Each structure stands twice: as C-alpha cells, then as structure tokens.
C-alpha cells in the first residue's frame, strides 16, 4: 500500500466523501419532497465502489444497478449532473429520462445502470466480447449485490465469460440484504466468492470497508482480465447502513445490528489510516468534507434551477 501516491489516496478519500454527501443530500431532498421516485442509498459501501472504480481506466466500462449513485461518482461522474438527473431535469446525464435508478454517464465509462437485479452482468459480458473482437484491452465491470448471485443472469454470465475467457471483473457487493432478505437466508454458503469455483475462475473475497484492500484486489483482477487471463469474481464484504430505499421501514433487522456495523464506517476508517500514515492531517481531511458539502449545495442549486425536459420531446430517444 505504501506505493500509492498521496494524491491517489486523497482522491479515493474525496470520492468516498462525495458519495456519502451525495447520498445524504439525495435522501434529504427526497424526504423534503423536492424529488419524486425513489433513492437507494449506497451509504456504508463507499469503499467498495471507489476501490474498484479507481482501479479502472476511463475506457473500462462499468454496468451499474438501481443503487449506483456511488459507482458513478467513483468512476468520476459530475455530482451536479447526477443531482439534475434525480431532479428529472434536462441537464441530467440522462436528460431526466432515467432518474435515480438509471444514472448513466457514458463520458466517464459506463454501459448503463440497470435496475433489474443481475441484468447488468450479461451486458458486461457482451461489452467484454466486443472489446476482445475489436482488439482493445478494456475491461468490463458489472456490479451486483448478494441478491444478484441468486439470479439466472449471474450463472449464465459467469459461465459465458469463463468459457470465452472474457475481460470481465464481476463485482458482488455483499451488503448482506436483498431488500429485506438476509443473504444467508437466500444462499447456502457463507463465502459468496466460493461460487467462482463452479465456473473455473478465481473467486476473491475482500473486506469491503477497506478501500485500499478493495483497490488492491480489484487491480489484480483487472490486470488479469486485461492481460487475457479471463474473468474474476470479486466479492466485497460491506453493509447496507440505510434501508433498501430512503424511508424504508427496515422491520427485518435490529437497530443494534445496524449500529454495530456503523462502527466499521469505511470513511472514518480510511481517515484514520490517512492521518496515521501521514498522508493528511485531520484538518486537511475536514477541509475535504467542507469542500464536498459546498459542492453538494451547488449541485442542488444547479438541479433546482435547471429546466425540465420539454414535453414536446417526449417521443425523443426511443429509437436511434
């Protein structure tokens, strides 16, 4: 880890804080009735998305999910245009047509945010096949959760990527809950990475609260994919601190369990690493928080002031 530059580590920290603040802001504007629809907070999983996405190049493409604010920010997307999207504004990345669950920034390397669980995996397989056929060395990185590992998408996609040795890193963020269902009630094994064995590909399990560990594991998997070594199943062990969506009643778990998990807060944990190894002082980190909070205020202002899509364009973007 000591080989990482201070700039890189601070950028990781900045993006983790940006995700946290974006989610807190999104939940706030949702609860205040400023936006409609729904918001699926990524709080508690910041180290996973940032550790993976910062191990990627801009021409490596991610496939997101309904819970992909974090993946977009981790890949470098602009929070103001993301905020405009969840406000349903023309200035949003998807011109207000997608909303929270479908924020997609092609400019920073995305295939889409697909809100049917597991559905991004086959699409990433195809992108990787395309890369291979075009002679490119890009990598496709689909995200899903523990729930996604029970879908047919997961089985078919891992199998196809494995037989064709495609450059895919399948990232399973084990946040422990598929809506209300604890993962051990849906899966008969404790270690989800063990599923890789059935496809003859490496399965790697990593502490998803530790951004440096995620970054290292993702980097290794990406390198293997890029150099023709085929796909990897990377499982990041994290926890969904908030409900499935903002305001979800969470009747299926104890507050004590959630409070215990809050102790592993990936941002606080990384802050301790950064101050201890001399990368930054507590004051410098605090300044990042201030800077990002100001960024979010500006993002909300931008989103609120941006125009809605013109109703006369309702039939645009259905066919190319």
């Amino acid at each position, binding site marked *: 880890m000591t080989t990482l530059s201070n700039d890189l580590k601070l950028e990781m920290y900045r993006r983790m804080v940006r995700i946290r603040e974006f989610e807190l802001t999104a939940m706030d504007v949702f609860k205040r009735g400023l936006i409609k629809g729904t918001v699926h907070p990524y709080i508690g999983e910041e180290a996973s998305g940032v550790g993976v996405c910062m191990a990627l190049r801009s021409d490596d*493409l991610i*496939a997101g999910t309904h819970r992909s604010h974090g993946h977009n920010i981790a890949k470098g997307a602009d929070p103001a245009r993301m905020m405009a999207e969840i406000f349903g504004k023309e200035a*949003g*990345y*998807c*011109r*207000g*047509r*997608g909303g929270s669950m*479908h924020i*997609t920034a*092609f400019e920073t390397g995305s*295939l*889409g*945010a*697909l809100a*049917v669980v597991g*559905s991004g*995996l*086959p*699409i*990433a*397989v*195809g*992108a*990787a*096949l*395309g*890369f291979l*056929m*075009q002679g490119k060395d890009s990598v*496709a990185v689909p995200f899903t959760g523990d729930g996604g590992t029970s879908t*047919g*998408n997961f089985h*078919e*996609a891992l*199998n*196809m990527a494995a*037989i064709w040795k495609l450059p895919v890193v399948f990232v399973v963020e084990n946040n422990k809950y598929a809506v209300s269902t604890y993962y051990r009630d849906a899966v008969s094994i404790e270690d989800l990475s063990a599923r890789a064995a059935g496809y003859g590909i490496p399965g790697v399990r990593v502490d998803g609260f530790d951004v440096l560990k995620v970054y290292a594991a993702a980097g290794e998997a990406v390198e293997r994919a890029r150099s023709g070594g085929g796909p990897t199943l990377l499982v990041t062990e994290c926890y969904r601190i908030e409900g499935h969506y903002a305001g979800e009643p969470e009747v299926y778990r104890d507050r004590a369990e959630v409070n215990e998990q809050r102790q592993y807060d990936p941002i606080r944990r990384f802050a301790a690493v950064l101050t201890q190894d001399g990368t930054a002082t507590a004051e410098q980190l605090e300044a990042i928080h201030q800077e990002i909070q100001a960024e979010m205020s500006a993002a909300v202002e931008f989103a609120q002031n941006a125009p809605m899509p013109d109703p006369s364009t309702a039939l*645009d*973007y*259905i*066919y*190319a």
Partner: protein
Amino acid sequence: MTNLTRDAVSLGAKAPVMPPDLIVQIPAGVPAKEMTMAEAIREALAEEMERDPRVFLLGEDIGKHGGAFGVTRTLFDRFGAERVRNTPISENTIIGAATGAALVGMRPVAEIMFVDFSGLAMDQIANQAAKLRLMTGGQAKVPWVLRMPQGGGAGKSTAAQHSQSLEVWYAHIPGLKVALPSTPYDAKGLMKTAIRDDNPVIFLEHKLLYSFRGLVPEQDYSLPFGKCDIKRLGSDVTIIASGYMVWHAMLAARTLEQEGISVEVVDVRTVSPLDEETIGASVRKTGRALVVAEACRSYGPTGEWAMVVMEQAFDYLKAPIRRLAGRFSPVPFADSLENGMWPDTEDVIAAARDLMQY
C-alpha cells in the same frame, strides 16, 4: 434438441407447397436467382458480414450445425468461430451479450432457436435493450438483430412449446422493431435493413416459409421498415396479413378472382413500426377489411390492425371488419386438434365472400 431439430427440418420439407407464382416481386429482366427463404436470409447475413467486420452471429448450435433450421449452415466454415459464435444454452445472456457488444460498437445478430424460448430472454429484450436508449437520454444505441423461427402449421406437429407466433409480445414494446417476412425477397431485403438499423430488431422467420422458393435480385438491395407491402392490387376487399398468412390470402385471392371478387393483399412485413397509412389507404379504396393472423385471436395483431382500419377508414367501410386468427389455445399435438388451429385458405375465401354480402 438434436432429434427435434431433425424432425423440424424434415417436416419442413413436407410443408404444404403454395404455387410459387402466387407472389411475383421481381420484374422480368432483372437479374435474379431462385432460392429458399432460408438461403435468402443466409445470403443477407453473409453479405453483411463481408461488408462490415462489426457484424457477427451468436446463438445456440449456429456453428457447424448451422442452427436448428440450417439457416447459418456454411457460415461457420466461411467466417470462423469468432464471428459465428456458438453459445451455451443461455438465452438471457445471449441477448444481454448482444446488447453489451452493441453498446461498444459491434453489430451482433443473435439467434434464439425457437421464439417460444425467448421468454427466457425477456428481461434482456424488453427491459434492457429496448429501454436503454430512453433511460440514458439518448447516450446508448443498441444495434442488434434477434432472429427467431416461429409459427406452426399443417404437418409440423411440434406442439405447444415450439409452434407459437409471438410477434405482438415484441411489437408491444417501445424501442423494438419487428419484422415478419413472407418471401425470400422480403426476408433478404429486410434482414439487410435490420442489420444496418441502429435499434434492436426482432426478426421473426416463419418455419414453414424457410423452404419456400422465390426470386432474389443479384444486385444488393434493402427494404424499408415501417412500410407495408401490397402483394396484390384489388378493389373489393383488403386482406391485411403477415408471414405465412400472406400466402393463404394470395391463394384465396386467386380463387375469389374467378368469382369476380377483387382482393387487395396488404402484407404487414414489419409489424413494428406499423404502416398505418398503407392499411388506411387500401381500405378507403376497397371499403372492406379482413384481418388475418396466425397469432392467437385475443389481443393479437388482428385487433391492432382492425383498430387502425377504424381510425383511418371508418367512413369508407361498407361492411364490418372481419378477423381470422389463431385459436386461443396452446398448440396441441394431435392432428385432429392441431387442424383448425390457424386460419387457412378456405377460411379466408369464406370470410371474403361474407364481406361481399354487405
């Protein structure tokens, strides 16, 4: 699958043969070759693969085996395993992979062995490929073609899970286009357009039509989507049909002509987008409309076409709109039950005669 495949192909050879001169599409003097619809589709695929290195094929058993109906036969030897890509039995990921490859600039042509199996891929077709363009505000385009054999018919006897006509499943989804050719000429020309189109295209191939022969121009050509094709001009009754039903309509028209009834046949060769103008113009001219489809009657294509007639030509109607459609039933195996499942030439003749009573 192997036995079924062999059966399907051999039964296809025993399919009722329509007089090939029923549909004439190439003017005399235009250099043309006679070929089956399967060959016409294969030729379109091969020419597009030659023309554009981004075009590739993927699907179950499409390699050496050539697909369940032999459409891709010889292409594996010609283009290799990279571009004629045999897949595992994973319908959803065949389509998902086509979508992902299309998103990064390839132009995949996927095959699902029978349209009946496409339910396994429905999320990737209807939720992902069809919606990505709108969901991303126009950032994404998904130029793929999904080829699927469909349909049943006398002597096929492939029962409930290999005989359906499902064009409306897909025509109902905004973002998709749907083609259902009735002749080798249409199949080749529409396939070329489908491959060059920047949207996901569902290309439905009627199994009975694979062995039908017809003339195909030697020169490169393509046919437009969103346009019906008038297969026969007439003045008394408009028959609106697609796929195999076009042939019943054409054969019926020949008999009816001898009775002094002049039939116009409008072939809805692209089910979506639907060419409402041509349907409307024809019925405004004839004043009588008969809609014929192999797909099930309830909520089927005939209901949609009839409504188009109401919207476009109500004031011109001399008679109520009549419809002929597949029985609302899973397809049974036994001949005694399968017979009568779908409209045939006699049904069309009788319905047209009825319409002339008004």
